[in-house]
Structure formats: structure tokens, C-alpha cells
């Protein structure tokens, strides 16, 4: 089983030199900690910054400088600020190469639900609907099951959708899976996790890749 940090670390291997990356709130944000050496990526935050750096020291804190999760940030030399209009232009126009976000449910068709639990939680979709409707390369970072132990990888999402047919890859605490032809394809297992265990907690159609292997770090 992977920790949240390890999920982020596994996802960081999907980063390629020259990628512009949008990281969602939660586990996705941690991906920035694991950029492989020797490759350059730039992090975009949809509230209007490209070229985010580390979190600030106490002295560097600036109230006018936050990320989409409302956390204080810094920028690297060569960064740029822009307004929300241009920011979502980048997203909608597919200028961002990789989007990583969390989810409450993902379906075997690549549908994703992460913004609303009717009658219980209504936080809003923020920029997630724009991101999933536009990005060509979407990775979901999440736990394989919810707090009640139920699978979050479903035949069909039960919660209101954020987007349809858009997720291409999922990294959970148990496995890395791709979505192909309306099936989850098990590509990699977390160390110490068995195929049968993943099968048991995956409600959607699951096929095992011929090249299925144990994740390496």
C-alpha cells in the first residue's frame, strides 16, 4: 500500500521534460515535490500563475500570492501572472500537458465525480469541470476505496459527474491503472498488494495488463 506521498511520487514519473502541469488540491499538490532530476516542468495554478516555486518562508509570505488551493506560494524566475480568463484559456486551449486531480469516483469509461454529494456536500466544481473537459492527459490521484471501504472505481459513477470520458490514468494507494475501451486495466501493483486484492476492491470491469508489474520507486 502506498502512502499519499508515494502516490504523488508514482505520478511524478509521468512528468516529461517540457510539460506544463496543473495540480489539483490534496495529493496532486504533493507531486511537485518529486519532479525527477534533469527534466523541466512548469506548474500552473488556475488562479493565475505559471512557474510556481516552493512554499514561502515566513519572510517571503505575500497575501497577493496564492495557488488555487489558497495556499501561499512563491514563484521562480521566469514565472508569469495573468488573469483567470487567460488562465482558463490555457486550460481550454489545451496548452497544459498534464492535469492531476483527486476524485470521489471514477468510472470504467473515464467519467469522474469530485464536486458534489447531493444533500451533503456542495463545495462547487471550481475549475475542475474546465480542466477535465479540456485536458488530453488526466491522471486521477485517490484512495482506491472510500472511508466505508467501498470501491471508488465503478462501472458507473453514482455521484453527479464532473466530466465524462476523460480520465486516462489512475494512481491509488493500491495500484496504477489505465482506462481503455471502457475497462480499468491494471498496469502496476503497489508493493505488497496482490492482484486479487485489487480485484476485490474494484467494482468496475478490471482486466490485468500482460505487462502488469510491481511499482518501482
Amino acid at each position: 500500500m502506498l502512502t499519499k506521498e508515494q502516490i504523488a511520487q508514482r505520478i511524478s514519473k509521468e512528468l516529461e521534460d517540457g510539460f506544463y502541469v496543473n495540480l489539483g488540491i490534496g495529493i496532486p499538490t504533493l507531486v511537485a515535490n518529486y519532479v525527477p532530476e534533469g527534466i523541466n516542468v512548469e506548474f500552473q495554478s488556475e488562479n493565475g500563475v505559471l512557474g510556481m516555486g516552493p512554499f514561502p518562508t515566513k519572510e517571503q509570505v505575500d497575501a497577493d500570492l496564492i495557488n488555487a488551493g489558497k495556499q501561499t506560494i512563491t514563484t521562480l524566475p521566469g514565472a508569469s501572472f495573468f488573469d483567470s480568463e487567460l488562465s482558463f484559456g490555457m486550460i481550454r486551449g489545451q496548452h497544459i500537458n498534464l492535469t492531476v486531480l483527486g476524485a470521489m469516483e471514477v468510472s470504467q469509461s473515464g467519467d469522474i465525480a469530485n464536486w458534489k454529494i447531493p444533500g451533503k456536500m456542495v463545495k462547487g466544481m471550481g475549475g475542475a469541470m474546465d480542466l477535465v473537459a479540456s485536458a488530453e492527459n488526466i491522471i486521477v490521484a485517490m484512495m482506491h476505496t472510500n472511508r466505508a471501504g467501498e470501491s471508488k472505481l465503478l462501472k458507473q459513477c453514482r455521484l453527479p459527474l464532473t466530466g465524462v470520458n476523460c480520465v486516462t490514468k489512475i494512481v491509488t494507494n493500491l495500484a496504477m491503472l489505465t482506462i481503455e475501451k471502457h475497462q480499468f486495466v491494471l498496469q502496476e501493483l503497489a508493493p505488497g498488494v496482490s492482484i486479487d486484492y485489487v480485484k476485490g476492491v474494484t467494482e468496475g470491469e478490471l482486466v490485468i495488463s500482460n505487462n502488469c508489474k510491481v511499482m518501482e520507486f
Partner: protein
Amino acid sequence: MFFCIFNRIQFFQTMISKKVNSVQQALEGITDYMTLLVGGFGLCGIPENAIAELVRLNVKNLTCLSNNAGVDNFGLGLLLQKHQIKKMIASYVGENAEFERQMLSGDLEVDLIPQGTLVERCRSAKMGIPAFFTPAGVGTEVAVGKEVRTFNNKQYLLEYAADADFSLTKAWKGDEAGNIVFKGTARNFNQSMCGAAKINVVEVEELVPLGALDPNEIHVPGVFVQRIFKGEKYEKRIEKLTLSE
């Protein structure tokens, strides 16, 4: 006033002044039932002085379009506390418990809109585009009742320009002509909203003399601004202080 020679004929000419001296003057004309565009992302770049004045004015039954709804005791949360907002149009409202209470109890109408669509609707109003197509929300409940059209094998929704009485935005520096510049991520929705309403009010941290802003670097030219004023004070509250150590 500047003295210029224009094609051999002399004329006096200076910019059109948008400056007002107080937040009271700036918000003159805002009444119950109006629709307001309010800039900011979370608590970053919000028009603090205008919001405080709305509280003081105690105007009611407002429709507010803003990316977020503030926190319980700051930003638009201050208006929610006093039940001044009838309807909220936003993309993310997760930081405000009072908001959730009023929404779930039915006291508050809420229209949740994808963030990119929300800002593009403001931009469209500003730019005289009545409607545009966007992929955000296709196949979700956001698409219900909306026209769907396919371009290049991809589906899009038809979305409309926002329609508002006032915009209340906040900039870093501005001049009397209404030209403004923003700093950092405090720009966010402010740039597109400023110019999108019938009357556009902007508050600034610093009012600088005409000519002090580089004309190449103005984010919103004064033509989009009807009233500009220097905010009395800025708390600039930080929502999630996150440090590297």
C-alpha cells in the same frame, strides 16, 4: 492639463477623470435586488472596502457573482452573515460554513458554474460577445437545459454573457484616468469583471499621478472604469498560510 500641438492647431487636452473621493461616492446607486460582480479568488484580491460599505449600506436581496463566497467572517461572508445576498453565482464555496447552512436550508439561491465559464461570461459581457461555446460541463448537470453543439467531434455548451449592474473590483495601482494594474495572483477575476457591468467601480491600494503607469503595462484601460478610489485600508487576510518549513 497638458498643452499640445496637434497638426498646427493648439488644444488643451487631458484624460477623463474617474476618481471619486470615497467608497460612499463609489457605491452610489447600489440598491436592493441588484446584481453585482465581485472580484477576488478566495480572499485574494477582494474589494475589501467596497464589501465593508455594502455591509454598512445594508442593501438586501443582492445577486452576487463571484468565484467564491468568502469565509464566515470576511469577504462576501460578511454579507451572508447579514443575509444581504439572495442569490450567489460562484464556482467554489467550500470555505464558508454559513454559506452551506443558508444554501441547504433554502435561504440562499445558489448557481454553481465552472470557473472558466464564469470568467468567460464576465469577459464576454465586457467585450460585447453575447454568447460562446465551451466544453466545460458537457455531460454533467451543468449542461441541463443548455444547447449542446459539436465542433470537430467534440461537444460544447452554449453559455451567455453575464449581466450585472455593478462590478466591484480591486487593483494594486491606478490613476485618475481609471487605468489599473494588478499584482501577483490578486488579478484573478478582477481584470475581466472590470468593464463587464453597467457601472464598474475599482478600488486601489495606491492612486498614482497620470503618466506614472507605463502605458504598455496597463491591465485594464480607464475606458472600462466608471469610478476609481483609494481604499482606506487593506487587511489582506491570508486564508491558508503555508510555509516551506
